[in-house]
């Protein structure tokens, strides 16, 4: 069966890059969820990862570096029937876009945020990203990075994000499963995907991840916030993958649309004269 999300394009990624696996997983996920391309909006920023929307058949808003989340929030709010995904790199989402990441969680919009976390700035040629390990050396971090890494899962859990997961580009099948749950989850869903960058990250390679990664087992209870937090701190010898935390609560869109009697924010015929007459009474 043809995947309706397939698009033939000149893909600008390096051969062997983890991004290919994420693209593949995403396309399969969307198609297996029986969405149609025109129902889906993919919002991205700038970076290597952020080019992904150009490689599949969907609606695309490829905006500014760091700013995909506010756009995604608004698209979903304006037209809640759309399936909205914000997808970009770790620099884009957690660096330049850090403030939006943190505050969007507070709103709990019904969007999925997929982060290609290669622990490096790929497109700008290898500087440390927020998730790079302390000591990471690059042409800018000549003394080694002096900063501790940003832990996206801990921060998301600290903000009580509705759905928090980690995937690995080295395992497409499991990634698909996680993506399926994330995209169908009603509320803010974060999927941080460990994505080897074969060109600039010589530390966190496929092998490095493979040696450490394991999946949370069935006993693990993703509803316990403190446990989830504790789990999210595990990084180094062992790196857990899977769904860390889940907390179903009303989404922003559910709350807003319960309060107003319109189903969306799209064009409405409004008789100007009538509205004017009604409104002018407040200025009398």
């Amino acid at each position, binding site marked *: 069966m043809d995947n309706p999300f397939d698009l033939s394009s000149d893909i600008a990624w390096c051969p062997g890059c983890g991004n290919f696996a994420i693209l593949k997983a995403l396309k399969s996920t969307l198609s297996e969820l029986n969405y149609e391309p*025109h129902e889906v909006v993919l919002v991205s920023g700038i970076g290597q990862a952020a080019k992904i929307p150009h490689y599949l058949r969907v609606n695309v808003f490829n905006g500014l570096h760091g700013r995909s989340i506010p756009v995604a929030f608004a698209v979903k709010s304006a037209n809640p029937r759309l399936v909205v995904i914000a997808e970009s790199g770790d620099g884009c989402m957690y660096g330049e876009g850090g403030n939006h990441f943190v505050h969007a969680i507070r709103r709990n919009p019904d969007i999925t945020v997929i982060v290609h976390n290669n622990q490096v700035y790929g497109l700008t040629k290898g500087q440390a990203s927020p998730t790079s390990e302390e000591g990471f050396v690059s042409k800018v971090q000549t003394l080694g990075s002096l900063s501790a890494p940003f832990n996206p899962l801990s921060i998301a859990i600290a903000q009580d994000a509705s759905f928090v997961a980690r995937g690995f580009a080295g395992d497409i099948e499991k990634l698909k499963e996680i993506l399926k749950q994330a995209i169908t989850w009603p509320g803010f869903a974060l999927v941080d995907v460990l994505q080897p960058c074969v060109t600039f990250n010589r530390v966190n390679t496929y092998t490095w991840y493979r040696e450490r990664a394991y999946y949370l087992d069935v006993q693990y209870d993703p509803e316990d916030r403190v446990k989830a937090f504790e789990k999210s701190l595990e990084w180094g010898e062992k790196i857990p993958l899977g769904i860390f935390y889940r907390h179903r609560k009303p989404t922003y869109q559910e709350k807003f649309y319960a309060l107003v009697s319109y189903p969306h924010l799209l064009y409405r015929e409004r008789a100007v004269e009538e509205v004017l007459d009604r409104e002018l009474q407040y200025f009398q």
Partner: protein
Amino acid sequence: MVDRTVKIGGAAGQGVQTVAEILSVILRRSGYYVFSLEDYQSRIRGGHTFTQIRFANQPVHAAKKSIDLLVCLDSLTHELHHSEVAPQGFILGHVSPQESSASLGRLIAIDFEKEAVNLGDRIFANTVAIGALSRLLGLAPQRVEDYLAQVFSKKGQEVIEKNIAAFRRGAELVGENKLFGEETIDPPENPPRFLLDGNQALGLGALLAGCTFYSAYPMTPSTGIMNSLASKAKEYGILVEQAEDEIAAINMALGASYAGARAMTGTSGGGFCLMVEGLGLAAMTETPIVIVNGQRPGPSTGLPTRTSQADLHFVIHASHDEFPRFVFAPRDPQDAINLVIRAFSLAEQYQVPVIVLSDQYLADSKVAYQDVVVTEPVKRPLPVDGQEEYCRYALTPSGVSPRAIPGGKALVVVDSDEHDECGHLTEDLTIRVRMHEKRMKKWEAMKRETRLPFTMVGRDVNLIGWGSTWGVLWETRKELARKGIEAGIIHFNELWPLPQGLRDILRSLVSPIVVEHNYTGQLAELLEQETGVELGERITRYDGRPFLIEELCARVEEVWGRG
């Protein structure tokens, strides 16, 4: 003819704005035209704040320097403003011991608070003041009492009654004093029906234009627009989102617009700075958006609660590389309603950003109108329901491509990178050239779109201005006429692209003087640059306060006398 000015001053938190608002409405309901001006500091309590209300039995559009009645909610007000009171005027309220002998106006010392406490609570002090000033102004007591009952209706009968008692006590304390002596109070044939300020008007314009999405971060003087739309959120299904910062605000608005909502954002200079990258995104993705920038003095944080017109050059050139945009600046609340509607129409027609330059003076000044007229049609080119092979940036002779929104059959692909006709990222430099020319091409039609300035050529001198100074130019013109000087007015509310045909107008002007709330004379520079006509004289003010009629008049006379 009645034409009087009341200034009410006090510390922030004392209720200056409440008293002023009640008075303005009562004056309007009594048949007077009103123009009110707010002056406040960037603090919540203490310091000094005042509202100045001019009322007359014909339309008024600006404030006067000379005051007929100074209402002092504290003695600092007396100290600061007593010298502005006209010889036949009154000073009412808390008297400053040092200044009382030197005061020009007739003094009616009332300790509003003490009176209120006598009536049971300090809280009634403002109503005592309203009582006193209503009597002095000869306003019909019944009308005021009815209005007070309306204002306090939610607080219950007891509160209403106590306020009415306070009101009566205030009136009583004034005794037989009257501001109007021989003067006939002659309400106009067509009394004003509405009273609204710039922010309310900007909000109303957006509402009428069908705006359903407003994202912003609070910032004086534009927060009022957000308040205005938020008060309608439930009724009209408008999403008003307070963003975490201005960057999120503009990106949200663009996302909403992309998805098919009519979206707007509003801010002031510092916040606009943060939106500059988003402005370029709007241009590159050709996503319609309306951005209100409420000007205040800078640079940087500057004077957050004062007025300014110093962002013109900035907004015209904001963001890297080049792209077409509209820049409008409403002349008063009535104009603001229409210009915002027009901003939405043009933003969608040309798929470009439209910047509306407001300022603190426009935002906070209330003007009374006999009628609020919406002349601007709400035009909304319906998005096309593209086919599968839809291309968002299809090349067309005008540079404007048919616009679809996501959710229909067409896939809508937009990109901040240079892109091909279908919106996909490209590094093909031939396509780049075509796309850049496509965007720039819109300029030609846009240039024909902007309207010529309000033009009334004067024999002796010609005042050129833009935005919120329209009213004071208008009033100054009348004032000058009284002195035998025939002044003209050339006033711009559509600034960019500069309308066509200006050179002929400007060349013909005798003694042009450009009047602006900035240091360098930005409109003057712009006009000289674009038309090559030397405009010579400038009158500028940059202390954060607006021009007042007498003052502007005197400065025009001075400049003109020299010339």
